[in-house]
């Protein structure tokens, strides 16, 4: 008998996952990064297959070759674009900074496009109860939406950030299908602001203070220049450097570090309650026909995951840096004759050891990050989910064959292949 309500259960052995991550990272390092396509796919298969939704596990059917194709597609699109921008900027006499800002904008837009398509890639490769998920909509529309809301969100000093989050999530959710069943999304802003007002108020105060400080620095600056001078500065007559020399870098760094520190404090104190509420509310607002999703995700489980991760990271860093200081310090300041690095052989092995030390740190961090942050968040959020009524799921059928045949669409896997898509 199928239960009226079915739970999502994520359970896995941390040791097994750590072994997978360690092996994957080692092979990735040894193959100069090529193995990452296989590694990412193996990690996804692990995450998916250890997630049971109402007794039946998810299955990730994607293959490494999909990511390799995506990577080459990304290279094919981005490399000429990037080289073209480089050549154009070489030919420019004025407005080099404006050209660079334009390039950043183009790359941001492409990244949003890629993220949307990468979500489609993951959904179409997710098999559950013999059916696949799918995502319609347009990557370009999503990228436009994301860009417009980014401008509005920044202009409002972050106060309208939840509106942006809700709008983007609505676009993603409403274009998501399981089989032939479209998802619907009916979130309201009230719970987001109820849980998030201390955080966004804090961010707005910090942003306003920063803008005010910058205005003061601008006014107090001895040089007369405007934004257009900076953007359109003529490199040939050194206006560019003069303009930048006039900027009081120390003051700006001071303001930015105070603002950054204040932001971290606000994020640590008020951030988790918003993020937990958003995760919970977005899940609760999503339904597939009559099947509703329910989440009990709480602030304390989010804090527990992050707290544990940061504690493990701190412990690891202490041991790693301590050993590094002892080993390399002893090497450099030993009783051996002065100028130990003068010998070419010693210098060679010293730098080999330094490089290996760096690799060990990099790999260990990647393993800790995967096992103790990404998987723990996946588990905490997954285990908070349930859905009901379960019998309505049996009525969902496969989407039209045409749509299934169009699984390999343009741009899929680009962000994935560049590893911008996360899990």
């Amino acid at each position, binding site marked *: 008998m199928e239960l009226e309500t079915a739970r999502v259960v994520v359970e896995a052995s941390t040791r097994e996952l750590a072994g997978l991550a360690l092996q994957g990272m080692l092979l990735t390092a040894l193959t100069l990064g090529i193995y990452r396509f296989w590694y990412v796919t193996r990690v996804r298969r692990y995450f998916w297959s250890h997630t049971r939704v109402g007794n039946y596990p998810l299955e990730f059917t994607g293959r490494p070759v999909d990511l390799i194709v995506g990577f080459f597609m990304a290279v094919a699109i981005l490399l000429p674009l990037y080289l073209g921008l480089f050549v154009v900027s070489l030919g420019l006499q004025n407005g080099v900074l404006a050209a660079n800002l334009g390039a950043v904008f183009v790359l941001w837009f492409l990244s949003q496009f890629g993220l949307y398509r990468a979500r489609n890639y993951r959904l179409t490769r997710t098999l559950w109860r013999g059916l*696949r998920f799918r995502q319609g909509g347009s990557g370009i529309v999503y990228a436009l939406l994301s860009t417009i809301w980014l401008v509005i969100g920044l202009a409002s000093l972050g106060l309208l950030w939840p509106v942006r989050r809700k709008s983007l999530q609505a676009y993603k959710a409403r274009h998501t299908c399981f089989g032939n069943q479209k998802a619907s999304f009916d979130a309201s802003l009230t719970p987001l602001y109820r849980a998030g007002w201390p955080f966004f108020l804090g961010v707005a105060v910090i942003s306003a203070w920063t803008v005010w400080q910058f205005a003061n620095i601008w006014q107090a600056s001895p040089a007369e220049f405007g934004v257009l001078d900076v953007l359109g500065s003529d490199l040939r007559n050194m206006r560019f450097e003069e303009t930048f020399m006039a900027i009081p870098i120390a003051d700006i760094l001071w303001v930015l570090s105070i603002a950054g520190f204040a932001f971290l404090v606000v994020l640590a104190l008020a951030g988790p309650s918003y993020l937990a509420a958003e995760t919970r509310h977005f899940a609760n607002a999503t339904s597939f026909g009559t099947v509703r999703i329910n989440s009990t995700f709480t602030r304390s489980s989010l804090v527990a995951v992050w707290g544990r991760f940061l504690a493990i990271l701190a412990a690891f860093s202490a041991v790693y840096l301590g050993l590094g200081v002892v080993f390399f310090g002893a090497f450099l300041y030993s009783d051996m004759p002065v100028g130990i690095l003068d010998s070419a052989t010693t210098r060679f092995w010293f730098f080999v050891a330094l490089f290996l030390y760096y690799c060990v740190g990099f790999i260990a961090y990647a393993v800790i990050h995967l096992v103790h942050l990404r998987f723990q968040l996946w588990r905490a959020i997954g285990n908070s989910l349930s859905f009901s009524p379960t019998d309505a*799921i049996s009525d969902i059928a496969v989407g039209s064959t045409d749509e299934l045949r169009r699984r390999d669409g343009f741009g899929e896997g680009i962000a994935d292949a560049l590893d911008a898509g996360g899990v």
Partner: protein
Amino acid sequence: MQQSPIAPEKSLPEQPTFKAVLFDGVTAAAQRVRVSIEKDKLLVFNAKNEMADKVSFNQLFRPITKADQIVLAVEDPQDDRRITIEQVNVPTDVWTSLKTLPEARRQSSGQPSRIILACVLFILACLATFTVLIPAASDRLAFIVPRSVEQTLGDRLERTVLQVGPQNICGSSSDNPDLRSLAERLQAASGGSEPVSLHIIDLPMANAFALPSGRIFVTRPLLDLSQTPDELISILAHEMGHVQAHHALRLSLRVGGSSAMLGFLLGDFTGSAALIAIGQALMGTAFSREFEREADELSVQILQDLGISPLVLANMLERLQGNDQQVGLLATHPMTADRRAFLAQAALQDDKIMQGSEAQILSSQSWNSLKLICD
């Protein structure tokens, strides 16, 4: 869910059957089925006890294996049918035989040999791009790039990369009449197609280098070491060879292209690394032997036009080699035996030039004032 008792019907096998759940890939409904294993085949019976499917073991794999559950699938990647078998429903020997099925498709691309092949191909492709494609493309591109682009590149490199402030420039052909006439002579001797400007700069290392769009730089120590005007001019003729062949632009495009591509692969989208790399390469004028040889060949023609023996260049380079200060020039303009032989051969072939006599391109008055330009 009630299971109809197995009646002895025709469609039923002799082997025992076990409970399983089938997802047919058409609906999400969990269909209660019974399966049995006959030799190396999996038989599937529907609720009416009719045989619904018969799949050979070598067409099956198990995408998911858990302690209590195995999911079976068929090889065809388009086929989304799945059978879920719980451990509690099957005897141990059946469970063990199910576990002998492979975990992934047999024609999976995840074979280690294929991974190694892909890596080798990728590294070979990168090597081919860096050693063949980018140099070849740069050399073609250098001759079709508009002169204005070469000009701008020269401006930017001169200022933002060399870090040469106006205070370091002792004199330029734009404001010094001696340098200007020297530049005009060099330009005329080289055919007059390329713009030429000469700059004496006060840098600690003895060096001479050419930036895009005909900017030739000579450092103060190199000027000090030149005993006669011809010795200085022979070095300038060699640099003029680099200018004529657009070596600076070609090298910029090579280094810029390579580091831009490398930066892209590693995720640096700003292009700043590329510009710095170009600057360092040009500052050191780390031209390849091929470029040096080409510049020598072109300089021989220029020197003949000016009436200076190529041996002066050879002697000058050789003499500089013995000087401790010449690290910069030595490292980047290695004086090899075959370069010496080539220049000596060129000198022999030219009977118009009288060995050991001055070409009188600069008056002694001009030469003396030029020697003091940085004081």
